[in-house]
């Protein structure tokens, strides 16, 4: 099977999941008490106006017609228009998406850096170090993002005044729009003040989310390494006189496939944590968009963001599979030949 066919197959397999999720979200939104039109214009608006809005948004049609219209739209790439600002939903999403990507990528980097460093220390020294790392992992795992974020905001933002506690960048410093990722755009255009400001704004949210996710990473990588260290080929390496840290590297390498798979799964969790992190740090990403619009019962936007999240997860899974194919000789020889 060629990589391209493989990707297409994976996407096709993701379709039923997406359809089910869409349906569930569609129904839940309509079960939530409240009327989106009233949420928009208030109860005192003239009835003719409300009627006009109902027609404009299609809310006057029977539910199943709304549903079929919506599904048809989704599969032709049309997510509809927001009830709130009447812009195409996709435009709102695209405005916010880069902020979420930036936060997710930096948080992920923080968590793999911490996860690897601690896992290697634990596997190398074992005993007390191992216990300490285990404790860290448990604490990191149970941290509640809004509280932990608030604590960091108080310490580093309010008390020490080292770092900003909200937003993506100091207003006015926004770099020219190229990718929408401020860090990348600022770097490409050589805009140092923007770069520094963007990184400073990223620091607290990505450390907050990165630490929370690092708990699972640490534990998983450490467990994989320690388990692999009991395998026979490790004895060969020890007998052959490889230094301890190199033996550890080989154990890590042999356990790389499950590690990458787990990291991919955690990325989905990371997106979930990103919603909380975004609200804690007023980060203008998809998560804040979602929460804002749920309040107004902006059905098309909420549905659109959910689809988008699912798509991200599907693509992450495909990416994980592709990376694993590169890393696992067994898969590589089996699938590509």
């Amino acid at each position: 099977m060629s990589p391209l066919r493989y990707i297409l197959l994976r996407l096709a397999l993701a379709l039923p999941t997406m359809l089910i999720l869409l349906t569930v979200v569609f129904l839940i939104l309509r079960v939530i008490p409240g009327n989106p039109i009233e949420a928009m214009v208030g109860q005192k608006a003239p009835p003719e106006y409300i009627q006009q809005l109902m027609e404009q948004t299609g809310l006057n049609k029977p539910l199943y017609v709304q549903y079929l219209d919506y599904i048809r739209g989704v599969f032709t790439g049309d997510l509809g228009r927001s009830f709130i600002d009447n812009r195409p939903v996709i435009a709102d999403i695209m405005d916010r998406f880069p902020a979420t990507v930036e936060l997710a990528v930096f948080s992920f980097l923080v968590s793999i850096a911490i996860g690897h460093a601690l896992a290697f220390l634990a596997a190398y020294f074992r005993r007390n170090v191992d216990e300490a790392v285990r404790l860290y992992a448990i604490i990191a795992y149970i941290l509640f993002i809004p509280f932990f974020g608030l604590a960091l905001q108080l310490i580093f933002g309010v008390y020490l005044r080292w770092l900003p506690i909200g937003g993506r960048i100091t207003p006015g410093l926004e770099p020219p729009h190229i990718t929408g990722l401020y860090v990348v755009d600022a770097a490409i255009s050589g805009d140092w003040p923007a770069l520094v400001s963007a990184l400073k704004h990223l620091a607290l949210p990505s450390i907050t989310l990165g630490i929370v996710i690092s708990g699972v990473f640490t534990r998983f990588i450490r467990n994989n390494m320690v388990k692999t260290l009991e395998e026979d080929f490790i004895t060969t390496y020890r007998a052959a006189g490889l230094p301890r840290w190199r033996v550890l590297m080989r154990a890590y390498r042999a356990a790389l496939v499950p590690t990458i798979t787990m990291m991919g799964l955690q990325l989905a969790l990371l997106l979930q944590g990103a919603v909380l992190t975004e609200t804690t740090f007023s980060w203008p990403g998809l998560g804040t968009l979602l929460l804002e619009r749920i309040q107004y019962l902006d059905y098309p936007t909420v549905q659109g963001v959910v689809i988008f999240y699912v798509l991200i997860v599907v693509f992450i899974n495909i990416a994980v599979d592709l990376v694993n194919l590169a890393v696992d000789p067994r898969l590589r020889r089996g699938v590509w030949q």
Partner: protein
Amino acid sequence: MPPVLVVEGLRLYYGMGKDVVKAVDGVSLELDRGEVLAVVGESGSGKSSLGYAIMRLLPENAVLYDGRILLHDGGAEFDIVSMDEEALRRDVRWKRISMVFQASMNAIDPVSTIGDFIYRIVREHRPDLDKRRGLAAAAEAIKSVGLPVSVLDMYPFELSGGMKQRVMIALALILRPLVVILDEPTSALDVITQANVISLLKSLRGDVSMILITHDLALASEIADRIAVMYAGKIVEIGPSDAVLTSPRHPYTGALLESTPTLRQDRALSSIPGRVPSLIRPPPGCRFHPRCGHAMDICRREEPPMVDVGPGHRAACWLLRT
């Protein structure tokens, strides 16, 4: 010339909960240059543990490790038990003593090609070899065990058990060590592959000193210059192969030989009456006494000493003292 390897009073105990497993309990032996010494005994007698102890490859639950293991190389002497870990790693492991592990089907790195795997180990001790020359050396070694060079580009999951065993033998020999410990090198293989590996081992005789751990007395008689018989963590008889096989002096050796009537079979030695004793609470006195037809009073109380019973032939049994 001094023996290449001298082992004196070697002990290796494992912790198991509150218990202590005395897997190697006071083993002494010598190995001459180019000699093949077979270590035979029933399953659980501590043969593999002896091999690991000689390499100082201790599991995490090792609770006691002492005695002396002296390795002589020219004028240099290495005391394996007490030497510094880093020196052991650098000067002894693989360079001077290597090992082919029992059931070594998973002894090869699963995510490396055979070539990378061998080179990774060679490079550790021969930093002067660049990758090209390291792989050339690996190719030589692979050919010397009768495998095609194409094996170097393969992963272990693409090789049969016999091929992996040969790879491990090639790897054990590639640095031209003084001593190779071979732990049941043929037991996991089918009959034809066994025959191949045996003739390979025969062709290696004289070049390196070998400690051949096996429960296959036929294999021992075919290849070994001397045979050591191990029982419950101790060596009970050791001597030239002919002497041990034709005129065994320890009752346990006799029982072992009787349980292998055809001398050309590869099966577990299970037909000696009674069970292998517990290494946690070994029988007092002579450890073989619960199963020995000649057991006397003294056998239950006192441990028999090793006595000379012929040229280079020693055994530990009270029958030999009276």
